[in-house]
């Protein structure tokens, strides 16, 4: 054997290579089974009866006629499922079916299981519900006013205010006093929705008091908890399997009425029950981007160094809590992760309105303040006569520092992504002419929330890897929502074991079979499940290496693992040898974010992350000075990915983020008229088509994060963020007017031009910020700048 003399080199046959996704063939051939593809023998179909009122007391629900219909097997009302739940323990304000009052058009009040969908629908129509309408709460202004009658909820308050926060880090007033220049701006970001291609679908089967749910969910673990609670079953009697998802984007993160209803109906009828939402119902289910009104005041010195910032937000939360308290805190949390802000005050509020509940959408709570902050800095730069890029560079945070709100920043490629995106786009050399513009913006995002949604001491992700005659299997609770989670797990295991990703079998997102992973949200999967999988696979590798080394009489350090070989043995031979030596081969790994990555104040749970990704965008567009129409030609997006585990998948996420960002910037709006969603269809809800999607040039910058798996950071959410302010900035570059309200529609561009023509402020946007009953400030001492930060 000559292998003894070969130096051992790390196997890099997999990580960093642009490999097709492991499920690609199944997806393009249509072989993959999404939740709605599941068919079980004797299956019943469920439809939900939904409220036609934005806010009403439910006086009575008469299901007699529906129950008597041929083909109807069971009918449920709120009395059958009275336990309240909600994703966040502090606002468990939802019921699967409301029997006391409804809070938005589309709020479910009854569920029917019948032999087919048509019969279930007919039975829903036969249910008599007597409502006593109450005053609707249609806007932030409505919600801040004293309630006309009863508020939507009897918790929280005052009135329809859901949650408030007021935090101050450092001496903000002193900062403003020292400033050479202080500027205030008001911005509005309209709500929009996720628009996944796949509608939500759930199927339940029950026997012997045990229930299994297959669902299009991003978070099987949180659904598992909610089901156990609402159904009154031990967690061991409930199993949740996450089906492959046709898009999530945050819209499938909450436990939903239809998921609970099918479980209960399956338990009641003893037959499998399926519920697939219609596209219209997906718009009611929502949990999308919060409409957000923002006010920001910043003090700078003559060179544009930020001395103090005061940021206020008020979020239109819709009818229920959902992730709302977190969404609200996120509107204030990440500003200091891109810019050094020595003194920072954040006041946030979330209000209830009688509209579909808002929740997490790609970028969760941060696209709104990012839009406001970046445009605000552009305006400051313009006033000071400083180039907007230069102004930003003077304020960029440095790698391995701590922000004023105690967030630990590690790898940070802000300067590199700025250099690269400017070089590629020619932004600095752009030719100025009316109607043509370029805009620049940067952003950052978390690689997984530092804390779980509910308090627990579980690792955030856990993985088991087994090897035997059946090959290598990775068991992990992580859920592939289309972002490439499965490919990532397979790649990590393959890298450690010297295999190719296709050789790895995956069992994921199944609470009955896989250890807990908290779910596919907050861009946490690659960082957290990736680290867990790496630990588990490395342990297995160690067993294989030890067995082979022992058999060959070499030291483990001399055994190479690559190309499906362990030392001189083929992988399967090595597995057989190790199994003989150690017994069943099963190793585990887990990941918990390090302690001390955030502060210790109330509200400090939102913002900390083991690492932050950074993105920079340049948008080039034409803006028609007479019609206000915007035609985006190209977007350059430089992203600090840490390290690309799969470059192809990373580029896909960047392009998807740019597409979604442009949709939000230019046209998407979940708007209401008298409590009714105005555009509840794919035709009426406008998002980008192929025709509007510009060229995207993706530039990946690898800063190799010290804690990410192989140095990797997130890409699922970050690249959306800078696109929106860059569009606004480019419109200003083209026409000289500011549109301080997203989406930037032709109508608003024209109104800004008209305002300028009339000698008024050359902008379109909210005129003022309302009076919000923010609580007294909680003053938090900033980290000691002199002390070591890590």
């Amino acid at each position, binding site marked *: 054997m000559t292998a003894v003399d070969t130096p051992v080199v790390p196997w890099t046959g997999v990580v960093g290579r642009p490999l097709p996704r492991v499920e690609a063939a199944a997806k393009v051939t249509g072989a993959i089974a999404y939740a709605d593809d599941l068919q079980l023998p004797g299956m019943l179909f469920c439809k939900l009866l939904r409220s036609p009122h934005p806010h009403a007391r439910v006086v009575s629900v008469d299901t007699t006629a529906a129950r008597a219909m041929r083909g109807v097997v069971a009918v449920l009302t709120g009395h059958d499922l009275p336990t309240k739940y909600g994703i966040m323990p502090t606002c468990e304000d939802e019921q699967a079916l409301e029997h006391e009052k409804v809070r938005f058009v589309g709020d479910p009040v009854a569920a029917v299981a019948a032999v087919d969908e048509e019969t279930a629908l007919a039975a829903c129509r036969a249910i008599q519900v007597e409502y006593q309408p109450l005053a609707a709460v249609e806007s932030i202004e409505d919600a801040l006013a004293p309630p006309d009658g009863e508020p939507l909820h009897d918790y929280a308050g005052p009135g329809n205010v859901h949650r408030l926060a007021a935090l101050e880090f450092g001496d903000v007033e002193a900062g403003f006093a020292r400033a050479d220049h202080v500027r205030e701006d008001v911005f509005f970001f309209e709500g929009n929705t996720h628009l996944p291609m796949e509608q939500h679908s759930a199927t339940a089967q029950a026997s012997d008091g045990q229930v299994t749910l297959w669902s299009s969910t991003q978070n099987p673990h949180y659904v598992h908890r909610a089901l156990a609670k609402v159904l009154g079953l031990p967690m061991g009697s409930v199993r949740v399997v996450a089906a492959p998802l046709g898009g999530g984007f945050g819209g499938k993160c909450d436990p939903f009425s239809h998921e609970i209803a099918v479980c209960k109906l399956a338990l009641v009828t003893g037959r499998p029950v399926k519920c697939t939402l219609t596209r219209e119902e997906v718009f009611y289910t929502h949990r999308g981007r919060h409409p957000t009104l923002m006010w920001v005041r910043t003090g700078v010195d003559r060179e544009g160094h930020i001395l103090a910032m005061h940021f206020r937000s008020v979020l239109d939360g819709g009818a229920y809590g959902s992730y709302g308290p977190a969404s609200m805190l996120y509107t204030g949390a990440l500003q200091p992760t891109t810019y050094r802000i020595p003194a920072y005050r954040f006041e946030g509020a979330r209000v209830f309105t009688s509209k579909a509940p808002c929740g997490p959408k790609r970028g969760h709570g941060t696209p709104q303040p990012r839009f406001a902050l970046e445009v605000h800095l552009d305006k400051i730069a313009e006033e000071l006569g400083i180039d907007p890029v230069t102004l930003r560079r003077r304020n960029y945070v440095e790698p391995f520092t701590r922000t004023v709100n105690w967030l630990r920043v590690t790898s940070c490629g802000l300067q590199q992504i700025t250099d690269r995106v400017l070089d590629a786009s020619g932004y600095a050399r752009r030719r100025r002419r009316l109607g043509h513009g370029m805009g620049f913006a940067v952003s950052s995002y978390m690689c997984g929330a530092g804390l779980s949604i509910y308090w627990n001491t579980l690792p955030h992700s856990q993985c088991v890897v087994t090897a035997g005659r059946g090959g290598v299997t990775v068991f992990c609770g992580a859920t592939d929502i289309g972002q490439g989670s499965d490919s990532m797990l397979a790649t990590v295991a393959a890298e450690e074991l010297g295999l190719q990703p296709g050789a790895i079998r995956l069992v994921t997102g199944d609470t009955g079979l896989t250890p807990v992973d908290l779910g596919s949200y907050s861009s946490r999967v690659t960082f957290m499940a990736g680290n867990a999988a790496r630990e588990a696979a490395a342990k297995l590798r160690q067993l294989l290496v030890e067995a082979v080394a022992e058999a060959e009489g070499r030291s483990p350090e001399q055994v190479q693992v690559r190309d499906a070989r362990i030392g001189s043995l083929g992988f399967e031979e090595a597995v057989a040898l190790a199994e003989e030596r150690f017994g069943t081969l099963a190793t585990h790994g887990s990941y918990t974010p390090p302690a001390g990555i955030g502060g210790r104040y109330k509200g400090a749970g939102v913002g900390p992350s083991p690492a932050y990704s950074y993105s920079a965008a340049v948008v080039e567009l034409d803006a028609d000075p007479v019609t206000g129409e915007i035609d985006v030609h190209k977007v350059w997006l430089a992203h600090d990915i840490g390290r690309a585990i799969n470059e192809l998948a990373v580029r896909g996420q960047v392009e998807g983020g740019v597409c979604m960002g442009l949709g939000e910037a230019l*046209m998407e709006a979940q708007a209401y008229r008298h409590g009714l969603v105005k555009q509840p269809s794919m035709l009426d809800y406008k998002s980008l088509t192929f025709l509007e999607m510009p060229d995207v040039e993706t530039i990946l910058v690898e800063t190799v994060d010290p804690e990410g798996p192989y140095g990797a950071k997130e890409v699922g959410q970050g690249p959306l963020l800078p696109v929106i302010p860059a569009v606004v900035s480019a419109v200003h570059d083209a026409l000289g007017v500011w549109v301080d309200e997203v989406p930037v529609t032709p109508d608003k561009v024209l109104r800004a031009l008209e305002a300028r023509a009339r000698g008024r402020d050359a902008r379109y946007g909210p005129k003022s910020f309302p009076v919000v009953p923010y609580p007294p400030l909680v003053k938090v001492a900033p980290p000691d700048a002199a002390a070591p930060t890590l």
Partner: protein
Amino acid sequence: MEFLAPTSWDEALAVKAEHPEAEVIAGGTDVMVDLNFDRRRPAMLVDLTRIADLATWQIDGSVLTIGAGVTYARIIDELSTLAPGLAIASRTVGSPQIRNRGTIGGNLGSASPAGDAHPPLLATKATVEVASARGSRSVPVEKFFTGAKRHVLAPDELIAAVTVPVAAGPQQFAKVGTRNAMVIAVTSFALALDPHAHAVGTGIGSAAPTPIRAEEAERVLAGELAAADQWEHRRPLDDHLVDHFARLSAEAAAPIDDVRGTAAYRRHALAVLARRTLSWAWSEYQRN
């Protein structure tokens, strides 16, 4: 639901005479949307796509007759010289799939104020050929629309064809919308210049309960062009005349605020579209 698929025109007329309540379907790009949304549940559908004659067009002298079943895709491919305004408008319809299915007759039958074929048909003074088992009649397109999604057809009548004069001069069409594909126009404008007849034709979409002409704008522009002997000299148009034409075009509209846009924006955009289409059309006329 009963589904009838007559294979000849006479058979179709007989079916419609016998079942005047039956819903007519051609490409299905409007009817199927309504069925999917449960906006209507007709007891009977009459499919006209199997009548081969309906999907043909022919020229008789200077008159172009386009069968009701001719699709947008074929108008783009085959009629861009004979009916350029209609072809330009057809290019802006929906997506390739919609253009392959949607027909000119179907567009008229739906009678949406936003129908993309309507403004160029108004601008070229088209005639809708209507038939029933009782006989046939010709309806000038501007008399065809009676309200939002309403038209003059009797319950037993079908649209056989549309006749338009073969284009004698430049024609243009423009629309604005939230995006470029798969969109219902926020507002649209069509213009047809006829140097032989010294005539100006216009059509406005999505800015009134029905598609309409801007008659005053047509009259003023035609009058000024004739007075200055512009048809002969082809000099650049006076800016004031273009602005005046644009203003009169916008004033002809009666727009509303809705999901797609505000009345104020529609009126503003209409003036812009009128100005642009006139500039494009006149440049083309000057070149040729």
